[in-house]
């Protein structure tokens, strides 16, 4: 414990370094093709200086020679990086037109892998060269997608205009007046529910490599994410059947015993012992019989009649897909996370009712897995198959045998899906394949910390983003006694 507290370079540095590294990485990934900056002479290439360690303290005489020197060197590196021209390869440059009336950018030339997770296609009536109207599908961008692309230099955008412009032949497909980044910000923010806060969260997540879509489709042509597989929304899944039966059973027991006890339960003396029976002479019995205050999220929250609850600002706005999740923009899988974006200054924390409303539409989480550091070699393969999959893109064996399963939960991380399918197969086939090693019970503290469901809320304060997750706890499920 002390070590963590005392190290001067504990966590902050790692995080800050991380961010930069991630940014570099993701832009590199998206370009894929030849990166021209790498062919430039070293001096002309922009170098983002790494953030270093903090100096311990200035020397007493005020900046010594060495300290001055190091500081100046860092400053020069920064100016050098800022002075460099921002360039983009022609092969990953797209062109588009902003249509303020429909708050969309239509993409005429789509290039670069970045377009793989951005935009959706919409059938629109277009004027053909011969003057006829024809419904054609075209790629359209939401305001946040357009700003993001324009800002990172991947999209040249024109504004739709009645005026005729003389275009160079390369731009024959676009018309109108060219837009600057500033213009894009002023015109597009405020359209289609996009606020500055939401854009900042969007851009932050995109730079980290997430695929980000809207939770609520802004139009009928916007592809809706597949619903969560039943197994995770807890209705008729093999996983929850057991849970439900036991829940039903226990609630039945408690109801019966409550009815039975109602006459005998003395609120002035809640704990009573028999004279002769053995079963109540232990601590487990005592603790169990003390659990009479209603608890847990299954207890409904009473709403008095004629009460109008205020409208909740807490509705998921973005769907998030982790970089390894296979993502098709025409048919997005169930999202890995859903995120609410609020302004940290104007919106207070969510109330219990607002959180409950989010949980009602959220999938139930699977219990956390124990991390296996060094799985034994002899059982390594079978163990990995059942618990952890080293390659996140490869589907586990059980899934390929059952196509219905693989379509049901392609978005789940490989870990989760392998468990679902593992459980599913266990329920479908009668003779279950004997597990090579019994799954270890997850760490009870990790289970409590994770909770049953989760609500992710990004708070933005003047450009600074802080994201919280609020997990629906279930302490009453697994008591110590």
């Amino acid at each position, binding site marked *: 414990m002390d070590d963590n507290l005392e190290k001067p370079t504990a966590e902050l540095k790692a995080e800050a370094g991380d961010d930069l590294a991630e940014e570099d990485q993701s832009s590199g990934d998206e370009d894929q093709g030849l990166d021209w900056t790498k062919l430039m002479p070293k001096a002309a290439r922009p170098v983002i200086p790494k953030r270093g360690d903090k100096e*311990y303290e200035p020397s007493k005489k005020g900046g010594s020679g*060495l300290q001055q020197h190091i500081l100046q060197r860092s400053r020069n590196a920064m100016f050098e990086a800022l002075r460099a021209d921002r360039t983009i390869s022609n092969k990953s440059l797209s062109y588009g037109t902003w249509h303020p009336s429909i708050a969309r950018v239509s993409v005429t030339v789509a290039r670069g892998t970045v377009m793989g997770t951005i935009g959706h296609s919409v059938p629109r009536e277009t004027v053909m060269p011969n003057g006829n109207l024809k419904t054609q599908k075209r790629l359209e961008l939401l305001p946040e997608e357009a700003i993001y692309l324009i800002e990172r230099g991947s999209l040249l955008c024109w504004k739709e205009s009645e005026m005729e412009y003389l275009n160079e032949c390369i731009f024959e497909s676009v018309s109108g007046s060219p837009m600057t980044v500033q213009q894009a910000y002023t015109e597009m923010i405020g359209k289609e529910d996009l606020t500055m806060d939401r854009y900042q969260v969007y851009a932050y997540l995109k730079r*980290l490599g997430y695929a980000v879509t809207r939770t609520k489709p802004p139009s009928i042509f916007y592809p809706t994410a597949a619903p969560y597989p039943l197994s995770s929304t807890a209705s008729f899944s093999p996983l929850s059947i057991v849970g439900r039966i036991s829940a039903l059973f226990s609630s039945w027991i408690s109801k019966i015993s409550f009815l039975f006890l109602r006459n005998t339960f003395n609120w002035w003396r809640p704990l009573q012992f028999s004279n002769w029976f*053995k079963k109540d002479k232990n601590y487990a019995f005592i603790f169990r019989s*003390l*659990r009479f*205050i209603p608890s847990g999220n299954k207890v409904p929250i009473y709403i008095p009649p004629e009460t109008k609850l205020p409208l909740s600002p807490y509705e998921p706005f973005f769907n998030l897909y*982790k970089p390894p999740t296979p993502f098709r923009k025409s048919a997005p899988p169930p999202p890995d996370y859903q995120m609410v974006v609020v302004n940290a200054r104007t919106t207070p924390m969510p109330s219990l009712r607002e959180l409950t409303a989010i949980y009602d539409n959220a999938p139930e989480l699977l219990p956390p897995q124990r991390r296996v550091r060094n799985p034994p070699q002899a059982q390594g393969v079978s163990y990995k198959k059942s618990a952890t999959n080293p390659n996140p893109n490869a589907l586990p064996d059980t899934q390929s045998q059952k196509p219905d399963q693989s379509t049901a939960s392609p978005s789940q991380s490989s870990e989760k899906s392998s468990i679902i399918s593992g459980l599913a197969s266990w329920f479908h086939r009668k003779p279950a394949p004997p597990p090579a090693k019994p799954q270890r019970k997850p760490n009870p503290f990790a289970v409590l910390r994770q909770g049953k469901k989760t609500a992710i809320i990004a708070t933005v304060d003047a450009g600074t983003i802080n*994201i919280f997750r609020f997990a629906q706890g279930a*302490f009453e499920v697994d008591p110590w006694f």
Partner: protein
Amino acid sequence: MKGRGPNKGGARHHENNRIYAHPLPLTFSDPSSNRTRPILGLLGLSRSQVINPHCEGYYDASTRSVWVVNQRDSEILWRRGFFGKGNLSRSEPSWFVRQVKDRQIRRVGSNASKMTSEELREKRRADRKQFKLDRAAAIAKVAAEAETIFETEGRVVVPALFGPQIPSGATWKPKTDESEPATDGNSDETEAIVKNTPDIEEALEDMEHLQLTLQEAFFLTWNFDCITILNPDTDEPLSLKDIWTSFQQVFLAPSTSISLTPVLEFDNPFLVHYAAYHHYRSLGWVVKTGLKFCVDYLLYKRGPVFTHAEFAIVVCPVYEDPQDQESSATNIQNASPFTWSWLSTINRANSQVMKTLVLAYVTIPAQCRLSKEILNSPACFAHYSVREVIVRRFIPARMRD
């Protein structure tokens, strides 16, 4: 901090297991012989009895606590379930032991073997301070070396902030040889003082009492009847009914007329906090105050002597009927949602000490669905409910796969 050697740590753990074997003040005894016990057991019967320790405590309205002045009772309540806190100690009432040891040291000049938790804490703080000084000195030394290299050779060496020459929390060891002469010098001085002062040790009296919060006291007396709460003015035991109303009344605004007793309310802080306290106790957690961590309660798995607290609980009352909140005179804490900055504050404070922040929502029954008559007995707890929300930060950069 764990014990230094494996043997010592194991021994202490074993010792703690023995001392703190009972999670509650009640214990069981079986008078039947070894031969009859299994036979009775087969029939689901047993002659074992519940032994109630019958402790005593004084209700003190001005400090909103119950004082256990009897040493035997304090020890039982602390050791069986970690109830209460010594008023002159940080947790376990250890003032008397510390005083006796202090005087022994002054007289004999030798240190007794077992350190109290307060002494351990002082030692830890001194060690930590010394470590920081040593580290700063090492860093300054490395920087000075780099400086001379730059001035004499013109070579730029960025001075390291950690590495083999600079001690870290893992590598730094307290210098025992140097620190001891210093304390010896001190004890010489104090010895001289003691020699000059008249001997007053014989009259040493335990000035400490164990103070129970009202939640703890009610939990013990209501469920287990193992503590009798006395009226400090009359020395007469209070009835459970008296306790129930007076524990609520201390939180109510004083009534304007003397004859009229204040009306009990659903949003009484005692009721709301008791519901949360009882809930986590009934799940087997050891629940202690969390004031030092900006929260209401801390949850320990077996008790503070075994592990650090895992969870930090903030009790958040929720009015079923928002109108009750508006009309209430109580102004109960945390009933309205926090600002984000305050949530960040408490979350930061707790994640720094490896605790997970939990918001425990306690619903307060709506006045429109229940009569206030029900507040006259603990039966009202059937209409409260406890549920929790766990708060953690979400860092997208670490959640990518």
